[in-house]
């Protein structure tokens, strides 16, 4: 058994899943809509940080202060890329439908259309092969826990993710705009009565979800050092699963769901072998939903159910 | 599931210390009352007193946290709403809940279908039973529509009906299930005085046809005119239960609902 390595790796991948799950959860919380194009929002983020590295001419691992500078630049690029893409997706694929009172199915198909389109744009432009990232952070082993190596890059992934989640949580729970998001999520018509501009809140929600996906994309690029036109697909499904697992619409649920899914996957892989990982994690999801139909933490951002 | 058939005056529906709790909130608190075969029983009380929750609990939408409900002597615990309907207990909704894009006839037939047993195979192979049941369902739907006096075309979508006609259709849909007991949730809401008079006649006609009626209503004029008995709820508790004259005089009811000023005059 590889308990310590499974824990370390589960938390690391879980951190990225959690960041993705936040995007689904925020949008769901406010619009009751599953943003199936979120995977492509993530994908765009990875490309944005890669292009920044190319533009900076970075081919070798930077050292010293340069690391910090590079990190800030690629984070900004990824966050900008992803959040702009998220807002564009909302404007193009969702808002016109929302204005026309369309059904959820129409939204779903529209999202699928946007996903196809964006994937193909990137595939046609940059090919269908994996595109490598230069190494920007040495994978130095900091210390060992049993067989587990706690590496610098893993620590960075988890710490950055946690910091982002903390800020998001503070933003949503502690600022005026954050209150606006929660108000729309809990009772949108009353929010209008309080003077909340719903369209603006929706845009803000996609922006925030996109920003989280952007951070996830930057961390992914730094950690796995590759991207691809369809890189978002798997990570998107994982993020969505994590969001549902934790209780979609619930920010803290998304965090919990991400980490739980990460751990279920690494332990599932250790116990049942890698080929059964997805079967294990979906089974866990179904089991959780059977006993807690709205996920582990429930839908707390949601309007109260009668 | 056998339907209930009892002589007039027997207890048809009995609530025994029913308590319904949502999270920390007690919506219905130890409520007991009975409805007897052939009567019109009104349930009144301020908005939020738990009247609709009582209806929802009786029809199986909510499960009572404590207490029990029986219908014709048969306990309803563990039955799903559709099973309870099939026992002979139908209802309408406070805010009309027709199937808006189904036609008038289709809406009523949904009620008529409550007596049907055939499902998918019956439909696929048009078994004799399915044909028989389909015809029966259609008949009871048409009868119910005629009974309530709805004159709209059968092929008209429910959403296109006038408000009063929607109310009628909703009642027809419930009657098409051939109920022993019908629960009417604020049937007069949104009606003008002329429509209310028609409604009053309709409710009495329903009762006269042998169907017991339980009614939630705010229009006290209507309630006082047609009810045989009145149950008053306030804050989830039953505060009074009696004949209309008794209720009108009851200090507790005046305090909680009718308003102190009214009583003074």
């Amino acid at each position: 058994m590889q308990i310590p390595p499974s824990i370390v790796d589960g938390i690391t991948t879980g951190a990225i899943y959690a960041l993705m799950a936040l995007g689904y959860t925020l949008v769901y919380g406010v619009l009751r809509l599953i943003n199936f194009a979120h995977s492509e929002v993530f994908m765009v983020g990875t490309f944005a940080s890669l292009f920044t590295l190319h533009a900076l001419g970075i081919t070798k691992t930077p050292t010293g202060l340069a690391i910090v500078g590079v990190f800030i630049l690629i984070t900004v690029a990824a966050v900008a890329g992803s959040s702009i893409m998220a807002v564009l997706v909302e404007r193009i694929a969702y808002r016109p439908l929302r204005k026309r009172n369309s059904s959820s199915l129409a939204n779903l198909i529209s999202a699928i259309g946007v996903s196809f389109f964006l994937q193909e744009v990137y595939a046609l432009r940059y090919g269908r092969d994996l595109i490598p990232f230069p190494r920007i952070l040495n994978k130095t082993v900091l210390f060992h826990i049993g067989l587990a190596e706690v590496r610098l890059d893993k620590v960075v992934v988890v710490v950055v993710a946690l910091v982002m989640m903390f800020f998001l949580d503070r933003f949503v729970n502690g600022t005026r705009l954050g209150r606006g998001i929660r108000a729309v999520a809990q009772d949108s018509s009353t929010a209008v009565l309080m003077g909340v501009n719903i369209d603006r809140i929706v845009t803000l929600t996609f922006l925030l979800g996109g920003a989280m996906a952007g951070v996830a994309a930057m961390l992914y690029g730094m950690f796995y050092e590759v991207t691809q036109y369809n890189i978002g697909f798997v990570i998107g499904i994982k993020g969505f699963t994590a969001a549902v697992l934790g209780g979609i619409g619930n920010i803290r649920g998304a965090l919990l769901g991400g980490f739980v899914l990460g751990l279920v996957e690494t332990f599932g892989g250790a116990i049942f072998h890698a080929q059964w990982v997805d079967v294990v994690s979906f089974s866990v999801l179904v089991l959780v939903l059977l006993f807690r139909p709205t996920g582990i933490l429930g839908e707390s951002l949601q309007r109260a159910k009668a | 599931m056998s339907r209930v058939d009892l002589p007039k005056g027997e207890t048809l529906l009995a609530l025994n210390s029913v308590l319904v709790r949502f999270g920390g909130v007690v919506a219905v608190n130890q409520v007991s009352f009975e409805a007897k075969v052939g009567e019109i029983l009104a349930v009144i009380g301020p908005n939020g007193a738990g009247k609709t929750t009582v209806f929802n609990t009786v029809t199986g939408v909510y499960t009572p946290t404590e207490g029990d409900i029986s219908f014709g002597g048969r306990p309803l615990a563990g039955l799903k709403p559709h099973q309870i309907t099939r026992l002979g207990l139908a209802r309408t909704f406070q805010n009309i809940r027709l199937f808006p894009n189904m036609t008038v006839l289709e809406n009523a037939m949904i009620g008529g279908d409550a007596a049907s047993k055939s499902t998918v195979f019956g439909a696929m192979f048009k078994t004799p039973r399915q044909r028989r049941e389909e015809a029966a369902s259609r008949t009871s739907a048409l009868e119910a529509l005629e009974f309530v006096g709805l004159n709209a075309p059968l092929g008209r979508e429910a959403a296109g009906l006038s408000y009063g006609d929607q109310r009628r259709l909703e009642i027809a849909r419930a009657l098409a299930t051939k109920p022993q007991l019908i629960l009417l949730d604020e049937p007069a809401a949104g009606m003008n005085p002329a429509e209310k008079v028609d409604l009053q006649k309709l409710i009495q006609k329903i009762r006269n046809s042998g169907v017991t009626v339980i009614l939630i209503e705010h229009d006290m004029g209507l309630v006082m005119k047609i009810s045989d008995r009145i149950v008053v709820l306030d804050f989830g508790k039953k505060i009074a239960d009696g004949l209309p004259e008794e209720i009108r005089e009851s200090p507790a009811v005046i305090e909680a609902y009718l308003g102190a000023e009214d009583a003074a005059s």
Partner: protein
Amino acid sequence: MSMSTSRISHSYRSAKVPIQKANDTMRQRWRGLPFPVRVLGYIVLIGVAMLLPAQSIGNIMAPQSDWPTILFYPIGSYILLALGLNVVVGLAGMLDLGYVAFFAIGGYTMAVLGVNYNWTFWEILPVGIAVAALSGVILGAPTLRLRGDYLAIVTLGFGEIIQRVVNNLSVTGGPTGISGIPHPPSVGSLSFLTYGVLDPRPYYYLEVVMIAIVIFFSIRLENSRVGRGWVALREDEDAAEIMGVPTFTFKIWAFAIGASVGGLSGVVYASKVIAITPENYPLLLSVLILVCVVLGGSGNRAGVILGAFLVAWLPERFRGLANYRILFFGAMLVIMMIFRPGGLLPARRRASEFAHGIGGGQPLGGEIQSGQFEEDEEGEK
């Protein structure tokens, strides 16, 4: 159970889409025709279906592909699958993102029983349908109580699990799949009933018959208590339950029927292609079939058939676009949903439901309309 929204008070535009009206009157006229005329109409349709694989038609329809073959797959198979999924999505209003699982189950039933146990096609067909229906029930029973959004991820997961399982099990041949799947036995010496390797037309005819049967039964279902029940639970599940519709049972039935049509098409497909592998059953196929249903007009059989035809045929017709096919497809989906959210031929009922914003049956999104909200004139919740 949520008892809060008054469905009838949803606002919607009273002006209906013009093509919708045309669609409606056509249907009414058709129904108004005397029985012999309608029979004649059906005979004409069957004749058209028989003549469809002709080379001269193929030259126009699919100059860069083999027309009879693509008539069988993807066109015919997509139509069959879309008709099945339509029962779940269009009629009962539930979202199923893992429909391909049932197609796979039918296919593997055909392959395993045909190759390992030497069963014949006609023996396997009912088994394949039954196994698929049963797995529909097994998937549905625990999960149908979940709300719509959750059903999406669970069905999606189910589709993935089935693919993983067939990829990992030895009885299904693992990733290599199963080859040497037997063809249906030929009937007499008629060329169009001789099931061999080379001629796709007998399979196409077989599929046409299956499509006709599925349409026949789905019309009967739709015009019965079950169909009424589906519409009712799609429009207001709680009210339906309270009016005596056994909503859970009817949902399970919808799932089982959809699954069995999926299984049926899986058996038919596998009996033609000789070899199947897990690659034949990607998640993308589930998505495409859902696109067929919604694009054509969820709930309207003619629309669904049209949608399936277009989704299957257009990529073959425009093979020349090669790499740009998916790009255009994606863009077209968005544009279609913006301008025709109810699909190309929206169902009469669904058209109004979409206008009401309740077309999905269960909430999956798009619930907040700018400046317009439901819930009115109500007291207690």
